């Protein structure tokens, strides 16, 4: 069972989703955010004592004007770790969360020993420009996010009428809060110099990538593998950028490789 509680950091009151028993695991969510109903979070809780803090601006976390850049959000994430009293948990991040996790591991290499980066952002390859998620309309997302866009569209369904202000305005507010915050690290190019620091990572690292990731295609997985010493790459068939939703079991066994 996933429950929520609030911790205070300099940035904001942070809502932390947590549950399960087992080794400690800190999960950093993607730009789309996370809720207690997230099936991958439930899968994690079946095996780990998982903590999934919501970034400032996301869900029930407060807004923050003083998180502006990559260093701010990386230090904020250490503040969260400290407030939760966690000591070297397994660090898992998906997409934007993977970018933050990689920064954490590079910034304080001695404090991150087990790292799993799932379809992580943070690098840029000129030959494979990342789609601009900030221009996508809701109906356009599934094609970029999922191996099976049709099934993905059902998972992402907003269930509301965009022409009805009673639905639309709260939808836009959520979008502005969440992607407004994510944009500080991802807009207009999702790269903030990680490649200059990534060599510092000492953690045992597993990379997990959907074979049909259309956000960060396979060459990004190879680039991370080349830049992180000893990193192991687990490629997952029949999965796109949302590999955590499309093939959760494969992601779970990849994380298990960290021991």
């Amino acid at each position, binding site marked *: 069972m996933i429950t929520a509680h609030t911790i205070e950091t300099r940035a904001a009151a942070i809502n932390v989703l947590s549950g399960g028993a087992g080794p400690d695991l800190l999960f950093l969510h993607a730009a789309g955010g996370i809720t207690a109903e997230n099936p991958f979070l439930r899968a994690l809780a079946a095996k780990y004592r998982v903590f999934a803090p919501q970034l400032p601006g996301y869900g029930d976390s407060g807004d923050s004007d003083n998180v502006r850049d990559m260093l701010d959000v990386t230090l904020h994430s250490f503040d969260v770790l400290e407030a939760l009293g966690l000591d070297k948990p397994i660090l898992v991040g998906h997409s934007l969360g993977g970018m933050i996790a990689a920064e954490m591991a590079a910034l304080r290499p001695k404090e991150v020993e087990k790292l799993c980066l799932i379809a992580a952002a943070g690098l840029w390859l000129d030959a494979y420009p990342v789609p601009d998620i900030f*221009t996508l309309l809701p109906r356009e997302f599934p094609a970029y996010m999922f191996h099976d866009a049709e099934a993905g569209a059902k998972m992402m369904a907003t269930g509301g009428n965009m022409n009805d202000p009673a639905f*639309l305005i709260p939808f836009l507010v959520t979008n*502005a*809060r969440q992607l*407004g915050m994510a944009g500080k690290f991802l807009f207009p190019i999702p790269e903030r110099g990680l490649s200059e620091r990534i060599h510092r990572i000492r953690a045992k690292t597993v990379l997990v990538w959907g074979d049909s990731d259309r956000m960060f295609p396979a060459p990004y997985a190879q680039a991370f593998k080349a830049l992180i010493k000893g990193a192991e790459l687990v490629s997952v068939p029949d999965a796109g950028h949302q590999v955590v939703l499309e093939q959760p079991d494969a992601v779970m066994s990849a994380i298990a490789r960290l021991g």
Partner: protein
Amino acid sequence: MKFTWFNLMPWPHLPDDFREKNRSVWVDIDQSLFDPVRCHEVYNDYLDLLEYADQLGYDGVGINEHHQNGYGLMPSPNIMAASLARRTSNAAVVVLGNSIALYNPPIRVAEEFAMLDIMTGGRFVAGFPVGTSMDTNFCYGTIPALTREKYAEAHELIIRAWTEKKPFAFNGRYTKLRHVNLWPNVLQTPHPPIHIPGGGSIETYDFCLDNTYSYSYLSFSGYLRAKALMDGYWQRVSERGTDMSPYRAGFAQTVFVAETDEEAERLYSEHAFYFYNRCLHVYPGFADAPGYRTIKTIQSGALNQYMRPNYPNLTWKDLVDGGYIIAGSPETVRQRFEELIKGLRVGNIFLLLHVGNMPKDKCMYSTKLFAEKVMPHLRNMWPEYDSDNRFWCKPIARRATPAPVGRPEMVPAK
């Protein structure tokens, strides 16, 4: 009343099937539709029209800044303003404006505006838009959620650079300068009047009132639809107990004048359709980068990309009856403008008399009719505020005249 003849400088050669074959007129518009040789003609025609407006007695000639935009060929309005400074003599040169968050460092704007203020002899009105999301975020890469903070800092720096007449250090978050010392500096005291183009962000109301800037609503959907937004502005003015001078507000209106209402439709409808159909065809994904608008503004429900009117289905009658455009005989146009001016309580009008792919001759015809048969009847709409000169430029009396073109013999005095 202050009437500014405003030119967006649209590209007039978008193909008939532009809308069907392209997703956006802005940001990622097809390069193959642009032709620099034709643009040479277009720029010169548009400058001719602005200069013509000066000769006809318009109070101002207005230009603005857009990037990668098929209906706005002015990435740098300051270049156009520099040209107008020399070739106009009475009208204010209204640059509405420079998106100050985009300049690095922003004193570039302070410097160029100071130059324009001096070149025009104080015939200069400045504008500081936050800039649309298309320009500011998608074309110029400013992070949406930091745009307003960056804008606020740039504003502070520019005003200090204009008003503190000695070197100072500026330790901003986005700009750090050890020696700020504009040279040349502005001519008008304390600085040129400032107009703020707004599109419904309610924070902007207070910003204008705090600084005695004029709030300009540059909408293309006309005066009837602007009523709710402008009422909100005036309600805020009233709540704060500030004076209610109509010069605190400006409004942009598309307008066509002919001898009769029928002639207006016959002459101009194709150009109205060109503008509302092709020029405003913006991909909705570019309209509002998440984080660009404040939560407060979204909650007010003022504007959003999903609820725009569907322009291409609008007929001439729809455009006229809906107030998107004001069109017709001088008498019709005069009546509509009285409604607009009183209804929105505005002292500054930005006239979109050039629209879409309108050719020069038709535009001159409409412009002349407005100047001669409409404008004189609207001059005295706010007599009780005649003496309010806070929102308009104050030119020096003895302004230099450009020498005639040619090479007169110059003999130095012995």
